[in-house]
């Protein structure tokens, strides 16, 4: 093993002093009986099971519903720190939206030579059908989940821009509900910014993007692939919280130039569709002809101003890790400012020099597929065996442009509750950002994912990660 990087713990400083953001919590924690806390720990899981906050796991024997483990120690962010983060997020999300517009219109950023043309030429998420079309309100990325990681007191980095269909927001909301039900007194001791406005903001923000054809109050619907989808709980939850219909493709049909849903009274137009299915399944007439999940003809209605689709088709372009690697240039090009939130250093394996560097240092790097997500298909050098690295090397050499590489970051830790008391674990943070013609709204908080295994850096729920309630302290 190489040197163990110094990790930054968000609760305890090196001298074991509690950092300011955690002081209120720490005072409360020290007063609690450990036995009582252990009992509460068990209660939390039970309450999640009862409410059915589960996700489905594919490829298991029975399509099993599992819980994402919840840790009851909150992840706490101070008010000033949060203010700084939000400025960076807002800047980045505005740039993403401008980038999408530009990419599907004049492509000035490419003409200016700031990013290479292959960024969209090689991009599987690129949609020719979106060229020259402006979505209602000019919004492409209605809902964004920016993944942030931290390595030091003032060192936050963007790890991913999830501009397609970021999930997990229901955990942000339910984690808070659970914490408030379990430890009500804690919330009178410590002033925490509420997250419960999110569904209302989402509904408002979607309604603000109603299409030209909408007259009167916009009808919003959440489009889900159905109950067997891994995030179905969240789809139902958001529809319920927004007071919107939860629809499947089979409920929708194009009638009289509008997308309409089959109600007990007959067909009724839908104005805004918050879709939780991928582009390729949206419209069997335009994309994947075998899709049973989508609505035949919806793209024509979309392009003629009959319906709003959120996020806009084709926004997946931004989730590409090659695009990510150009985000500093993208931010600067559209905002005229230096990025407030830096990227993690990234080597594009498409470049020969970078590839050589990556191949020489595989043991120390994290290598990711350009189109991959969810922690699959990646190599974490420091924790991989020689054999795994050798196998990965072959894949990388075969198609270098499919990969990017990053240094293995010493992600910050926050404590989790264990039988032996508090123990540090690595975390990341996904704040949820809403974009409407009226501006950008960032909910104070987000989803903190935590690697429950000691020393592990993989926070994905599909691979043993858990979640925490995320607190932003009130000013």
């Amino acid at each position, binding site marked *: 093993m190489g040197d163990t990087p110094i990790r930054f713990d968000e609760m305890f400083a090196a001298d074991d002093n509690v950092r300011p953001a955690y002081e209120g919590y720490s005072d409360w924690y020290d007063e609690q009986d450990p036995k009582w806390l252990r009992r509460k720990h068990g209660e939390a899981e039970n309450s999640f099971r009862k409410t*059915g906050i589960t996700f489905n796991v594919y490829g298991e024997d029975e399509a099993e519903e599992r819980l994402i483990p919840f840790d009851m120690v909150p992840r706490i962010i101070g008010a000033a720190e949060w203010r700084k983060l939000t400025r960076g997020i807002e800047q980045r999300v505005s740039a993403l939206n401008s980038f999408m517009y530009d990419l599907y219109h004049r492509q000035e950023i490419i003409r200016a030579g700031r990013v290479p043309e292959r960024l969209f030429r090689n991009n599987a998420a690129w949609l020719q059908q979106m060229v020259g079309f402006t979505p209602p309100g000019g919004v492409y990325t209605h809902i964004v989940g920016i993944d942030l990681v931290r390595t030091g007191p003032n060192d936050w980095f963007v790890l991913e821009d999830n501009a397609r269909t970021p999930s997990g927001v229901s955990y942000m909301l339910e984690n808070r509900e659970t914490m408030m039900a379990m430890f009500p007194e804690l919330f009178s001791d410590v002033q925490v910014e509420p997250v419960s406005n999110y569904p209302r903001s989402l509904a408002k923000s979607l309604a603000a993007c109603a299409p030209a054809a909408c007259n009167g109050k916009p009808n919003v619907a959440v489009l889900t692939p159905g109950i067997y989808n891994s995030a179905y709980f969240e789809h139902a939850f958001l529809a319920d919280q927004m007071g919107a219909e939860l629809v499947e493709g089979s409920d929708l049909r194009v009638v009289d130039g509008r997308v309409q849903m*089959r109600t007990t009274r007959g067909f009724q137009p839908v104005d805004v569709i918050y879709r939780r299915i991928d582009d390729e399944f949206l419209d069997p007439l335009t994309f994947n002809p075998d899709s049973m999940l989508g609505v035949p003809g919806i793209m024509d209605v979309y392009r003629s101003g009959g319906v709003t689709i959120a996020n806009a088709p084709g926004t997946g372009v931004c989730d590409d890790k090659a695009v990510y690697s150009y985000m500093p240039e993208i931010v600067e090009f559209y905002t005229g400012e230096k990025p407030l939130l830096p990227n993690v250093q990234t080597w594009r394996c498409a470049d020969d020099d970078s590839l050589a560097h990556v191949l020489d240092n595989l043991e120390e790097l994290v290598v990711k597929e350009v189109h991959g997500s969810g922690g699959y298909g990646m190599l974490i050098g420091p924790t991989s065996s020689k054999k795994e690295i050798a196998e990965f090397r072959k894949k990388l050499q075969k198609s270098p442009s499919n990969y990017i590489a990053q240094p293995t970051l010493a992600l910050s830790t926050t404590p989790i509750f264990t039988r032996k008391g508090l123990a540090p674990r690595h975390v990341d943070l996904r704040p949820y950002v809403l974009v409407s013609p009226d501006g950008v709204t960032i909910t104070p908080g987000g989803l903190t994912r935590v690697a429950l295994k000691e020393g592990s850096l993989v926070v994905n729920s599909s691979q043993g990660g858990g979640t925490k309630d995320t607190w932003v302290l009130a000013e």
Partner: protein
Amino acid sequence: MLGRTANGIFWMFRYLERAENTARLLDAGLRMALTRDNTKAEDEWRSVIKTSGQQAAFETKYDTYEGSNVWNFILRDKENSANILSTFELVRTNARMVRSSISSEVWEAINESWMNLKDQMKRPVAQGNLGKVVHDVRQAGMQVHGAMSGSMLRDAGFHFGRAGTFLERGDSVARILDIKYYLLLPSPSYVGSSLDTGQWDNVLRSVSGDRAYRWLNAGQIDARGIVEFLVLDDRFPRSLAYCHSALRENLAALARIHHQEGQCDTLMREADKDMNELTIEAVFENGLHEFLRGFINRNSSFAAAIADDYRFIA
């Protein structure tokens, strides 16, 4: 409300009622079997299987009607697609599908019951645990109905759920009565005779009507009285007359909400006329079996008409 959602709520409550009724049947059978010698107990279990409509499936698997085989077959056997656990799973699957149209109280009542039942039926159920399982299935129904009554908006969803409940309940009671009647009264001349009162008690028990009936009839048990009670007494919430008028009210509410009547409302007017004119004498004169088959067939027509009127399916 989406047609698919209406369909989901309607069937969620049908399955819930079905699970509950099957559990009642099992409960009544267990009680009878316990008080009999072995051969008679087998007869009793056969009758339970027959009444639940699972005879053919059961006999392809077993030669004899041994108690633990019977109740496990009805409760949890995967070879019996109508087993109680699978039926309850359908309740939950439908509830998940319509999750955003039912209150969280209703959802949690279903989800918690499901977790509990699944756990209790993980392995074959021993006799000592049967009473508890059966009780919990019935309890689940009570909890869901209670949650529904106390927390759900009286909009279309509520009435689709209610319509499903009473359609299924009427259907189930008619089937129990039909099969028991054949079993109990080998020929019409038996009507009015005092046959095995234990058997009749069993019929009443399987629809939770024993106490109410005794109360109303001062302990007298006779076939005609019981049939009259289960068919015509609209004070008893599981009688055919009660199920009929509850269905009528809910269909009327749906028509009101939708500002229009459909085929199911036309059908209801005919059914209502027949039900109002019905007497126990006429039922026996024309044949109870014929009457019950007619009732069951009309129920199927209702289900089809409701599905069509309210666009359950694309």
